[in-house]
């Protein structure tokens, strides 16, 4: 018997399955659900790893007694988490909903509100009728609509980082939506998923600062949908495995002080269990950093004012695999089902930690 065998077994309130369990976010879902007091994982799918143990792919889960099965044979569960590439869930959503009361999808397939947006930013949508029904997972902006939701769309990692950084400014009226906004994002290699190509091999991907989405990143759509702000978005790949860090350069219409900002962020996040504001001060970790939240569901936000340029800089850092996907998905499921919000998500992270 193993230490991590906190598998709640018969005590668990809900059964769960993970479609796409051999992928990176699928592995994180399995880890979180396996150690979650209220979930019992009964299925993980993979086409390429069928019959192999979960530990074969995810070495941190060697203790888990589960083998991948085909996504063709979905078992009936309370909650199905889908961690498949864009396009898969929209194809299979009816099967998913037949198999489970609640479907939580990590892809972009149900994040946007209208078919038009999918036509503009993606390659259209095959079941636009679900777009109205689905709820965006991020509790910090959509908590009130999650209880009882049966189709939940977990946010994009870079969009999540950006939205978490900027939302308090809209709530406080510091931003109104017509401002110039540059968002310069730095991400780790796990954002690319387990697939990877030439550019993600270790020799080519180590030590880089590589513009991978210079313009036109699809997460602009989510940000605009939720904040009403059109952002100039650029994403760089840097040398870490986990982490998304968004630096937002903003030009508010009226001057703003650090005190105003502290008030705005306190208002927004003082009661949020997973949000921290870090804005200057002493020591090594003075602003948000992905390292400080690696492996956790925490988000860090912070800011600095630049009066000379009438600029406001907002920093936001998350673990793309946690707050940016699997952790957000479990958080939303907790809220949807009425479970304690932080259940299964308490891990505080590590210090020191290298390039997690």
């Amino acid at each position, binding site marked *: 018997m193993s230490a991590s065998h906190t598998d709640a077994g018969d005590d668990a309130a809900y059964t769960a399955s993970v479609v796409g369990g051999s992928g990176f976010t699928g592995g994180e879902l399995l880890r979180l659900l396996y150690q979650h007091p209220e979930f019992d994982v009964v299925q993980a799918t993979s086409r390429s790893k069928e*019959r*192999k143990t979960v530990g*074969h792919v995810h070495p941190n889960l060697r203790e888990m*007694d589960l*083998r991948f*099965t085909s996504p063709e044979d979905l078992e009936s569960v309370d909650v199905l988490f889908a961690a498949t590439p864009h396009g898969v869930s929209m194809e299979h959503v009816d099967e998913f909903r037949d198999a489970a009361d609640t479907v939580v999808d990590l892809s972009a397939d149900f994040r946007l509100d209208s078919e038009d947006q999918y036509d503009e930013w993606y390659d259209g949508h095959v079941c636009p009728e679900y777009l109205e029904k689905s709820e965006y997972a991020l509790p910090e902006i959509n908590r009130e609509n999650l209880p009882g939701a049966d189709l939940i769309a977990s946010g994009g990692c870079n969009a999540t980082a950006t939205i978490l950084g900027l939302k308090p400014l809209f709530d406080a009226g510091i931003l109104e939506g017509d401002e110039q906004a540059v968002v310069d994002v730095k991400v780790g290699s796990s954002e690319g998923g387990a697939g990877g190509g030439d550019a993600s091999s270790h020799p080519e991907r180590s030590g880089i600062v590589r513009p991978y989405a210079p313009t036109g990143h699809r997460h602009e759509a989510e940000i605009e949908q939720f904040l009403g702000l059109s952002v100039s978005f650029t994403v760089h790949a840097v040398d870490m495995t986990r982490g998304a860090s968004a630096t937002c350069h903003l030009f508010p219409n009226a001057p703003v002080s650090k005190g105003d900002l502290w008030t705005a962020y306190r208002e927004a996040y003082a009661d949020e269990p997973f949000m921290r504001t870090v804005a200057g001060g002493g020591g090594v970790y003075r602003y948000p950093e992905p390292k400080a939240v690696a492996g956790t569901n925490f988000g860090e936000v912070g800011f600095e004012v630049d009066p000379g340029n009438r600029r406001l800089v907002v920093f936001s850092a998350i673990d793309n695999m946690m707050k940016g996907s699997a952790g957000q998905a479990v958080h939303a499921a907790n809220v949807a089902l009425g479970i304690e919000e932080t259940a299964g998500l308490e891990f505080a992270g590590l210090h020191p930690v290298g390039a997690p």
Partner: protein
Amino acid sequence: MAATITAEDPLTGEEIEIPADVEVGEIVDSPATGAELEVVSTDPLTLEEAPELEEDWGE
């Protein structure tokens, strides 16, 4: 989860659980060793180590 049956891991001698519907020629992995095991007969259920292709790194 789908039904499972037990078989002896040819490497470690342990009893392991594998899916009940395996067929001859299929590969499953041993949970203890991670090794790939080939189903060489189903009656009696017999597994053998399936040697993986060696990597030929850096030569």
